[in-house]
């Protein structure tokens, strides 16, 4: 399962503006952050966590296997390569607005290094009451209110909707085994189809809730995978952005949300998922129906 509670975590770009509050929120929730990297800032510390110039130096004192990348977009490719060279096996890329070329190069290198990538443009992932990675849920009080342990996995193309969905499930007595913001970009490290394969082997997970959007092929890819190989999991989906279907060529919300020449429409995605046996909720509140039956 993703995010072993024993795994040591490092943060690349730990001295950045958003990283400090993220680190303190994560520590509050019990995540094991051991060190951070910002080139040129060795010797500083963030919330008591030591900062190193390079991962090679960091590894003399610590052995993290999980990394969070929160560096400016032009520096992400290099940071990811450094992480893979440093033996990282789970890498969360939070930065948004990374050119697709860089994401694609990262994915080729990640495959060679045997590293799983979540993101880019992801707020992170959480295993309720175990640990969280990234800014998902924000402050500890909000995390506790929104996420509770259980057997439903939440996979979402939107970071905000990850928490909204979890909070909605929690308020209806449905706990979560894991919640993952897969990232809002057209190319992401782990898409729905790949994560469902992973959840298939997780005994704690019985059902999955997916939040999809117009654009890209993540929902179609999942439908194709499910048609080929049946899943033991009950899979439910809610897709927003029906109105985007009627506004071809206009980009809304996340970088990937655009319908072009009929491709990527919500109507098409819903149809593909339904044909693959997924319960697709018409309205947000209906997502419960698929879980309670």
């Amino acid at each position, binding site marked *: 399962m993703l995010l072993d509670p024993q795994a040591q975590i490092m943060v690349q770009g730990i001295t950045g503006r*958003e990283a400090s*509050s*993220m680190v303190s929120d994560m520590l509050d929730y019990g995540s094991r952050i051991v060190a951070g990297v910002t080139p040129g800032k060795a010797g500083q510390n963030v919330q008591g966590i030591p900062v190193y110039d390079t991962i090679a130096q960091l590894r003399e004192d610590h052995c993290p296997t999980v990394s969070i990348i929160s560096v400016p*977009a*032009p520096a992400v490719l290099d940071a990811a390569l450094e992480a893979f060279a440093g033996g990282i096996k789970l890498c969360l890329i939070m930065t948004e607005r*990374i*050119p*697709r*070329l860089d*994401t*694609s*190069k990262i*994915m*080729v290198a990640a495959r060679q290094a045997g590293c799983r990538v979540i993101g880019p443009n992801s*707020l992170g992932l959480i295993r309720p009451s175990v640990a969280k990675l990234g*800014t*998902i*849920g*924000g*402050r500890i009080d*909000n995390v506790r*209110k*929104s996420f509770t342990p259980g057997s439903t996995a939440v996979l*979402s*193309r*939107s*970071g*905000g*909707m990850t*928490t*909204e969905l979890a*909070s*909605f499930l929690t*308020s209806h007595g449905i706990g979560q085994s894991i919640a993952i913001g897969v990232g*809002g970009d057209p*190319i992401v490290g782990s*898409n729905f189809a790949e994560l469902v394969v992973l959840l298939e082997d997780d005994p704690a997970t019985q059902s999955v809730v997916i939040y999809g*959007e*117009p654009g*890209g*092929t*993540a929902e179609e*890819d999942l439908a194709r995978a499910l048609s080929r190989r049946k899943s033991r999991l009950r899979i439910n989906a809610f897709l*927003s*952005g029906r*109105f*985007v279907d009627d*506004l071809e*060529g*206009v980009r*809304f*919300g*996340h970088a990937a*949300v655009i319908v072009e*020449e*009929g*491709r990527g429409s919500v109507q098409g995605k819903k149809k593909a998922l339904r044909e693959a046996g997924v319960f697709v909720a018409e*309205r*947000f*509140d209906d997502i419960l129906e698929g879980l309670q039956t």
Partner: protein
Amino acid sequence: MRLLEHQSRKLLEEFGLRFTEAVVVETAAAAAKEARTLGLPVMIKAQVPFGGRGKAGAVLSADTPEEAAAAADQLLGRQLRGVTVTRLSVEKKVSFLREFYVGVTWDTTSKLPVALLGPSGGVDVEQATAQIARQTFDPWTGLTCYQGREMAARAGLSGKTLVVVGDVFNRLARAFLDRDAVLAEVNPLVEIAPGQILCLDAHVEIEDDAAYRQQAQLEPLGEILTTPTGRKPTSLELEAQRIDSMDHRGVAGRVVEFDGDLALLIGGGGASLTVFDAILHHGGKPANYCEIGGNPTAEKVAALTRLLLSKPEVKRLAVIMNVVNNTRADVIARGVLDGVESAGQKASEIISLFRVPGSWEDEARDIMAAAGVASCGREISLDRCARLVAEGDSPGVT
């Protein structure tokens, strides 16, 4: 950033692709003159940033200089999907033996760039049919000539044609990677004599998020239109972009105008889509789509609120966000109230619903309550909030 045809061909020519001779003109007289110089007959093509120009009547042929002038007259100044035609490309008409489509784009499934080769015409990349050869390739190394030849062979090509098409792919892929393109296509690529290849039309789109490292390379191409919407942005939309660029913190300016009376400040990226759908479903009439998120400053939110309320048709404002993570609910609340006040409105009268649960929600609720506005908590779902707003049945004032 979608390049115009003449910009696309200039970019691809840098990588060694050969095109028909062409000249860009802005007047009918220049079109006639260039037609004579190039040699007749010629094609006159409007330079507009979208496909399907042939069907739209934006590509005309001319057999005489007079016809060229008449065609130019007909096209210049015309409105095509909200874009005024100001430039035309005049090109020598060529005859050919056969034509192809060649393109490179991103394959989001394999996360790799993919090259496509098929029969000429409108090609639906996602629904690549049997007659289209596809080849994904490594973004670190590019598409080698032999991979291009393999594609050509799979498409049934042979002899010298196979060799030159392989070379075309190598160059097109290099242009695609070196220029951070999201699409680079030549349609059609024609064979004018056995083994002789020429590009007749090109379409290149550059990734917006790579602008920071492509500016210098793109500069020689001239001004690039940044309106992929096909219609001109409204003054309200432009002002929203300006507000967003005031400060790099947070998103607060993705605005699309609609003609209803309900102003919307919604977020983040996913919840804004969910809420907009739900409001339409329940019969609401939005005046705008406006996404906020990523922890914007109160100043940004205030400026945006004032802007949305500046539309004379607007009667109500709804502020609806998902359970926020890194965005601070209290900052949004303060920004909204400042914006309402500076628009000369009363918060308790204009705000029909405020729902920003999550980090700092208690502080936000107190701020709104002090202004006489009751907030909705997370227990009221996005869908239900949308219904309350659409049906004008908001929770009322404290």
